[in-house]
């Protein structure tokens, strides 16, 4: 398809025009990439500066100071917070995937009364603004509204993870994909005497890698990046995640931009690594299962 396009253009236009077009495409893309990358480059560059250099606002440090990373790591107790973040994210992600897969399968492949209405209601929860649910959720977690198993969930792992173990968007995304799997698969499984749960785990899930990765990455980002909720529910240090540690670095050591930027880079690194590992399936996931009807 591309070859034919190139040939087509080559027939219509002289080669130099083509080359200029190609060059300008690269230039535009390079400019775009620069805009996208600007804050990150500046972040990394600042993280290697001395305090004096950050005050003078330069684009590049004189000599890179790698010890900033060590200082930030020690000062903000990042070792503890990092482990907390890993545990919190893994727990919420496991919960999110389990509930979403099960519910999406029910909505996509099973017939039961009220299915459409319940699904519609579920989707409509997507329009509830977060600013509105934040405080009531906090009261619920504190155990003020309904009795919770084990009393107040403040400063606990379940308080940080359970509210994020279900998402209408994830269910929607997976359901769209599950629905498009051919019916013949189920018919064949049925003949072999395969029940729904075995069909789901042995046939549907292996076929759904792209949407599952997409949901996982969305869930990972939502959990790893969340700040407001952990700020509310962690009054003690025990379960504080990385973002909160980073935030306290901003509020308590406001002037030390270079340390903050070093901390920010540390926080960002796991996301970038994971993203670049799964990016192909992720873009595919958005593109194929994504938002199409």
């Amino acid at each position, binding site marked *: 398809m*591309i070859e034919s396009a190139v040939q*087509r253009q080559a027939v*219509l236009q002289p080669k130099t025009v083509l080359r200029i077009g*190609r060059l300008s*495409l690269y230039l*535009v*893309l390079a400019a*775009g990439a620069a805009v*996208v990358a*600007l*804050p*990150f480059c*500046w972040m990394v560059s600042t993280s290697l500066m001395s305090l004096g250099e950050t005050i003078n606002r330069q*684009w590049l440090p004189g000599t890179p100071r790698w010890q900033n990373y060590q200082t930030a790591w020690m000062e903000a107790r990042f070792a503890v917070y990092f482990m907390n973040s890993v545990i919190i994210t893994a727990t919420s992600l496991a919960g999110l995937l*389990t*509930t979403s897969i*099960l*519910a999406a399968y*029910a909505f996509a492949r099973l*017939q*039961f*009364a*009220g299915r459409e209405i*319940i699904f519609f209601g*579920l*989707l*409509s*929860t997507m*329009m509830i*603004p*977060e*600013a*509105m*649910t*934040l*405080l*009531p959720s906090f009261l*619920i977690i504190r155990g003020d*509204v309904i009795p919770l198993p084990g009393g107040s969930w403040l400063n606990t792992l379940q308080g940080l993870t359970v509210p994020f173990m*279900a*998402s209408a968007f994830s269910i929607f995304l997976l359901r769209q994909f599950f629905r498009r799997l051919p019916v013949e698969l189920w018919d064949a499984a049925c003949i072999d005497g395969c*029940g*729904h*749960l075995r069909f789901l785990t042995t046939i549907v899930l292996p076929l759904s890698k792209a949407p599952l990765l997409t949901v996982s*990455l969305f869930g990972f*980002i939502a959990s790893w990046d969340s*700040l407001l909720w952990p700020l509310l529910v962690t009054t003690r240090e025990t379960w504080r995640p990385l973002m909160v540690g980073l*935030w306290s670095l901003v509020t308590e050591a406001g002037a030390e*931009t270079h340390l903050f930027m070093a901390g920010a880079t540390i*926080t*960002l690194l796991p*996301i*970038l690594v994971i*993203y*670049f590992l799964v990016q*192909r399936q992720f*873009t595919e996931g*958005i*593109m194929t299962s994504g938002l*199409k009807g």
Partner: protein
Amino acid sequence: MKSTSQSVPTATSDTLEAGARLSFGRRIGLWLENEAVLGYVLMVPALLLIVVFIAYPFSLGVWMSLTDKLVGTPGKFVGLANFAKLLRSEIFYQAAWNTVVFTIAATVIKGVFGMWLAILLNRKFRLARFTRATVLLPFIVPTVLSGLAWLWMFDATFSVFNWTLKWMWQMEISVFGMALKENWGYFRGPLWLGSPALAMFSIILVNAWRGLPFFAITLLAGLQTVPPELYDAGDIDGTNEFQKFWHITLPLIKPIAVVVTVFSFVVTFSDFQVVYILTRGGPHNSTHLLATLAYQLGMTSGNLGEGAAAALFMFPILGLVILWQLFYLRREGSD
């Protein structure tokens, strides 16, 4: 539907009777083979969580909006007093108007540049896959982090933007044909977040910067479904690039473009983090949005009732947009 709902209990009781002599585990297994029962069982975990942590807090919020609850007090029912008070306050109208400007401007920027970016990315070139991945980065990175990075770049006295402008001023490099040295004897540079119009511009810029990649990638997905033969046919008819875009590309990717625009509209409309990090609604409330106003009233000032009322004002518009989208999807799906 009625007949199905009646058949559910009979079917389960049948299997239960049949399985009375079987072991407990086997009985559960038999019971789950009923499709309706299994459907409900699979749904329960997700639904329970969403009801407890989204739907219930929402209704609690609606109730709070009808009371004069402050932090730590039970609050008593005051009817629509909170809404009336908001409708009388100047800041509410300002926030509502700002929300409209912010949402429309950011969505239009994302739509136009996202489309353009998608068309560029749709061409084949070296490192295409890598470029696509890089383009998505602003969407992946925590808003708090990128927001703070932008905050420092916009900073009034030390901004790197202004630092660069200053450098250009010293070098007497002209920008847009205007030599900077002529205008300022002493260089200060614009207050990116300090003057009302520029602050609004800045938050729109950052929001668009963050949302654009998602737009571009989703539109790219749409572009890849357009059969290239159509463009060849267009060539034979002697159409130019713009005509091809307008008459071939646009109609074919319209469904996905509508969905992503609505999705972006909803997210932008209720966006809160970008503004909260960059300006906290200032200067002089010029960047206050309904979401930030709700947060400020409810969480910062502790006036829970008023905060909830402000958040509720967002609800009708979000609701209408999402309902419209659902009907649109259904209509497209049935075609």
